[in-house]
């Protein structure tokens, strides 16, 4: 693997630790789940519809920042041929273990989503669920996603909402007031985190258009009435998430 950027190396350290503390076990639960669900409120795909109308049977899928690989596993069970890409060996190790336990095999590739060692136009769907979508620089990974997709291919990614970032300071959870400036927002370093990237709606649209994508949908995820604050990701409370979007799912189609 090519040498990692300092940001990717920091994020790998963070996720090595997080995998030991949380995602190793959480990945086990997610792999056991039959249904596709999205985000910290676990909203079922049948309600969100982020993948609606996308043919998964036989589709070549690449997951950028797959972690323990559960999204790829969900898609593989629906007939897709996923490739999971992640920069953190510990998470890929968990993913391999879970593949063996579930008898579900697909390629796992240790690589930076900003420079994927795979040929152009080899996928029908690029998916990123809190992977590259927040841990990589969008000005580097979106061009990679565009390169990897075939014409007509889809890009689906889940990230934090602009508003929750604007309301977040060094302490969790998010506040009910704007504390970060939106203009110029891009790279964030939280005290206990790695390096994250968050850009505004206008910036996402401009970037996607620039790389040949048509924006098909933006699903802003609302915490259901009975939701509780997430057991591990405490950056936002369920009360906050019922009134304002903490997370959003973008869907785009490569022309």
């Amino acid at each position: 693997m090519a040498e990692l950027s300092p940001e990717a190396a920091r994020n790998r350290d963070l996720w090595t630790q997080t995998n030991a503390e949380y995602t190793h076990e959480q990945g086990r639960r997610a792999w056991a789940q039959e249904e596709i669900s999205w985000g910290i409120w676990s909203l079922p795909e049948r309600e969100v519809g982020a993948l609606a109308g996308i043919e998964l049977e036989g589709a070549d899928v690449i997951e950028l920042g797959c972690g323990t690989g559960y999204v790829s596993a969900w898609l593989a069970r629906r007939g897709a041929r996923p490739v999971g890409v992640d920069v953190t060996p510990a998470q890929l190790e968990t993913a391999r273990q879970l593949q063996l336990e579930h008898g579900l095999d697909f390629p796992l590739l240790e690589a930076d989503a900003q420079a994927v060692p795979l040929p152009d136009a080899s996928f029908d769907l690029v998916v990123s669920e809190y992977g590259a979508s927040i841990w990589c620089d969008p000005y580097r990974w979106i061009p990679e996603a565009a390169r990897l997709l075939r014409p007509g291919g889809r890009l689906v990614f889940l990230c934090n909402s602009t508003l929750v970032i604007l309301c977040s300071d060094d302490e969790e959870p998010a506040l009910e007031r704007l504390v970060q400036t939106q203009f110029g927002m891009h790279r964030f370093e939280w005290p206990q985190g790695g390096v994250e990237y968050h850009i505004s709606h206008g910036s996402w649209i401009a970037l996607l258009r620039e790389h040949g994508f048509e924006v098909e949908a933006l699903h802003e995820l609302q915490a259901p009435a009975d939701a509780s604050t997430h057991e591990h990701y405490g950056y936002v409370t369920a009360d906050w998430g019922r009134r304002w979007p903490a997370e959003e799912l973008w869907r785009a189609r490569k022309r």
Partner: protein
Amino acid sequence: MSGLSDHARRNREFWDRRSDEYHERNAAFIAGGMAWGVWQIPEAELNVLGDVSGLDVLELGCGAAEWSRALLAAGARPVGLDNSAKRLEWARRANEEAGVGFPLLHASAEDVPLADGSFDLVMCDWGAMTFADPYLTVPEVARLLRPGGFAAWTGGTPWAWVTYDEGRDAHGTELLSDYFGLHRWDDAEGSVDFMLPYGEWIRLFRRSGLAVEDLIEVRPPEGARSTYRTAEDAAWARRWPLEQIWKVRKEARVSAGSEH
């Protein structure tokens, strides 16, 4: 018109009542046209419309038609629409003074009495896209555009809505109202304003056969002046977008699988 919605009737009354006062306060500031929004950022800087010569253009909520006159001068064939007869009186007067003429239409943008596919461009600067229901205007815009034609309009932002402090008539940093369900605001002064969440705008565009081309989050220059907004608003808008410009294009044909 018989089909005027309740909020369209209320906004017609509001704008008829406020027309002269509005003109008195803002007309000189916006007289030049070809500039967007409450800080009048020049089109030449934002480059939203590009070359308009030869285009059939509809302005939704034209008021005194400053934009339409400027578009005419740039070679377009404008039609100005407004829901307020009093606002259109100012447009007629200004056209006479300038010695120019183009159609001025008294109607709600929710129900435009013009044929399908009549325009290459539909534009609006804080007009009908704020004071009419987007669930009605966006399909109207799509209907009125020719395939390949485009629409662009300025309005407020969801952030401006959720931080609006009615008591102070100003925007603070506190989130005072919910984002989910954002749609309609009955202002204490009698108008009814509309706004949608980002995802809901996009859903509505796609459902109407409009491709999203751009979302310009407007940042006024330092010390920007306005007859519409206070210096406090301008300082706020240096940090977060208080107005935004959507640009959408009518698809040449509906692509298979784009609806879901």
